């Protein structure tokens, strides 16, 4: 039986690690949906934009260099870039600023609109961000290296003969830190409580004495941070390029499974999807022609929802009239 198969455990582990990567992306969705009921289509592009910005600062690219070249300025880089840590801080700053702009320009005028409208607005946002990101930093692939360990971890390799990429281990650690700190934040700070309040009821939040705008600003900034982390983790694997924005698709089945409003849901959902699709692809895939991961993730989530429409951590829905 495949439990004796040495690969079973390896695929299990790499499934879990992949799941963490998915969860990282899903987290951004959850934060925003929880606080403002918005299904943020732009989350993937946000990650791309964040990663592009980071690389831009790191390598000292000149923003809009390509655009400027229309006016005869052919330089593409400043003399030097910033050290990684500074670049990270700057990128975070950019994300916070971006969050503020989004709230002011897009969300404020759309307060109290139906979900589908806000969803559509974030699609417009995605378009804008994608275009601006490419105009600012160019559409070619960029290496992203912030000095995280890479390559197979020798220790594990020698001990168990399993290839586990250090990068993914560090991604897992980062994700865990992120989730823990988010949970603490929302549990033990006034702001965090306000966030949870706004999730339940906008009026309640106002009574806590924090304006809705501020709360949204913070939420979008935080999910901007999450996007940055996700962007870095995925970008380090594959280089930073347009495709990075497509990782959002990997997060959707996770959201179905974990529920749009539950942070632990996002994590557990991510792990289930990661392991599930890997096992299926590895054992069943070859029999039916492979490349099953994309749809299997959704089928898994779908089957699950058929039995638990409220998702993993949602409470049972009692319909009343």
């Amino acid at each position, binding site marked *: 039986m495949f439990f004796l198969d040495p690969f079973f455990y390896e695929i299990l582990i790499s499934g879990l690690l992949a799941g963490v990567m998915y969860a990282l992306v899903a987290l951004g969705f959850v934060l925003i949906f929880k606080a403002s009921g918005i299904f943020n289509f732009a989350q993937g592009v946000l990650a791309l934009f964040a990663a592009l910005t980071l690389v831009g600062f790191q390598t000292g690219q000149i923003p809009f260099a390509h655009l400027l*070249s229309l006016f005869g300025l052919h330089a593409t880089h400043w003399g030097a870039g910033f050290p990684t840590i500074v670049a990270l801080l700057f990128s975070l700053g950019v994300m916070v600023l971006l969050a503020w702009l989004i709230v002011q320009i897009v969300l404020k005028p759309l307060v109290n609109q139906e979900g589908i409208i806000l969803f559509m607005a974030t699609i417009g946002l995605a378009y804008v961000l994608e275009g601006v990101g490419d105009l600012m930093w160019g559409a070619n692939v960029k290496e992203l290296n912030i000095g995280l360990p890479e390559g197979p971890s020798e220790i594990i390799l020698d001990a168990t003969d399993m290839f586990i990429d250090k990068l993914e281990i560090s991604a897992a650690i980062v994700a865990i830190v992120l989730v823990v700190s988010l949970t603490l934040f929302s549990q033990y700070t006034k702001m965090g409580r306000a966030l949870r309040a706004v999730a339940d009821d906008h009026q309640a939040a106002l009574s806590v004495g924090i304006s809705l705008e501020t709360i949204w600003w913070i939420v979008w900034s935080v999910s901007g941070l999450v996007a940055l982390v996700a962007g870095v983790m995925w970008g380090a694997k594959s280089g930073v*390029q347009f495709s990075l924005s497509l990782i959002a698709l990997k997060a959707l089945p996770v959201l179905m499974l974990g529920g749009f409003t539950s942070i632990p849901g996002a994590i557990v959902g991510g792990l289930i999807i990661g392991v599930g699709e*890997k096992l299926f692809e590895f054992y069943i895939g070859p029999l039916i022609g492979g490349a099953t991961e994309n749809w299997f993730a959704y089928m898994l989530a779908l089957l699950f929802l058929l039995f638990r429409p409220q998702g993993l951590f949602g409470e049972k829905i009692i319909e009343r009239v």
Partner: protein
Amino acid sequence: MKKFTLAAVAAALVGSMVPASADHTIPLLSYRTGPYAPNGIPYADGVTDYINMINARDGGVGGVPINLLECETGYNTERGVECYESTKGQGALVYFPLSTGITYQLIPKATADDIPIHSMGYGRTSAADGNTFSHVFNFPGTYWDAASIIIKHMMDMEGGSLEGKKVALVYHNSAYGKEPIRTLEELSKKHGYELLLLPVDHPGQEQKSTWLQVRKEKPDFVTMWGWGVMNQVAISEAASIRFPMDRFIGVWWSASENDVLPAGAKSDGYKAIAMNRPGTDFGAYRDIQKHVIDAGNAAGAGDQVGTILYSRGMLNAAYMVEAIRTAQKIHGAGDITPGMMRDGLENLKIDQARWTEMGFDNFTSTIDVTCENHGGPGLGAIQQWDASSKTWSLITDFVGADRDVVDALIEADASAYAAENNISGHCK
């Protein structure tokens, strides 16, 4: 809104109604945006710079300047159609669609419009059968040539035989990626290796299970028909499971610097099949430097000069220029029509001497297109990546494919197409 639509349509119309100029009009259906932009940009830059160089240096071909019409497809078929229709009206001589999807879409259309297509090492492989595909050219080589040449290289590494060996194909799960399967299957029958198929879905950022599959099956070789981000991820995954990189051989679309650089030092030794010699030490490059870049007219951001795909773009443009010249010779006309261009392509002959004159000394294989064979010689060489110096270098000469296997396949597919669309060969 209705008014607005009309405005849009009106503008669209004007956009398409620019009168055909006296120049040689060549549309460039490039993709500088979208998921595959990293591959599209250098290619488009290469084409553009070379054409600009020809115009600047020789004032065009036979005194007639070339007018390059760039049109953004984003590697998307619908946009490709729009580009085709909008440039067709302007006297386009030839199309190189730069996308398998768009090529398939254009083959019947362009043939009906009597405009030749040159799909250089992509598109429909069986179009090498010129007798059936009168207007489609895919020299210098097809995917099936590439597959066979790669297998040849593996055999050389194994001392002549792949008997009992295992070869894995990691491919982009699309029409493009599926191209080599038939050939590899045929060859496996002939050479007795076991073929392992590992599809990867677009975009391909997640390939864990694919490479675990590789570890489980322990193939002796892996070859890859990858595209876009899939290449980078595959190469770094292969490296991180410590697959011997010199036994990992990609097709020419998995052969650019973009693909290996993100994997860093781990990618050292990765191989791929090449259409031309890497590097910039050629007359043509010097001319481009002199007439285009130094003049400040570099295409795009000007940061792609010398990359593999840039050189391939140059090569593509060089073919076009030479084809125009040939057409002019045949028809004795300076100003040529798409029909004449087709003849030019069909009679294109470039030997090394001619290449050297053109400033491509010892750069690529000789070209010999005939009415029956639009696939040219079908030669390719193997290039290898040196991560320390971040350079590619050829490690073999340009060798030919296993013709009797490949030609049989081409014959089969082409005749099927001919039957479907009742085409009787146009060659006597």
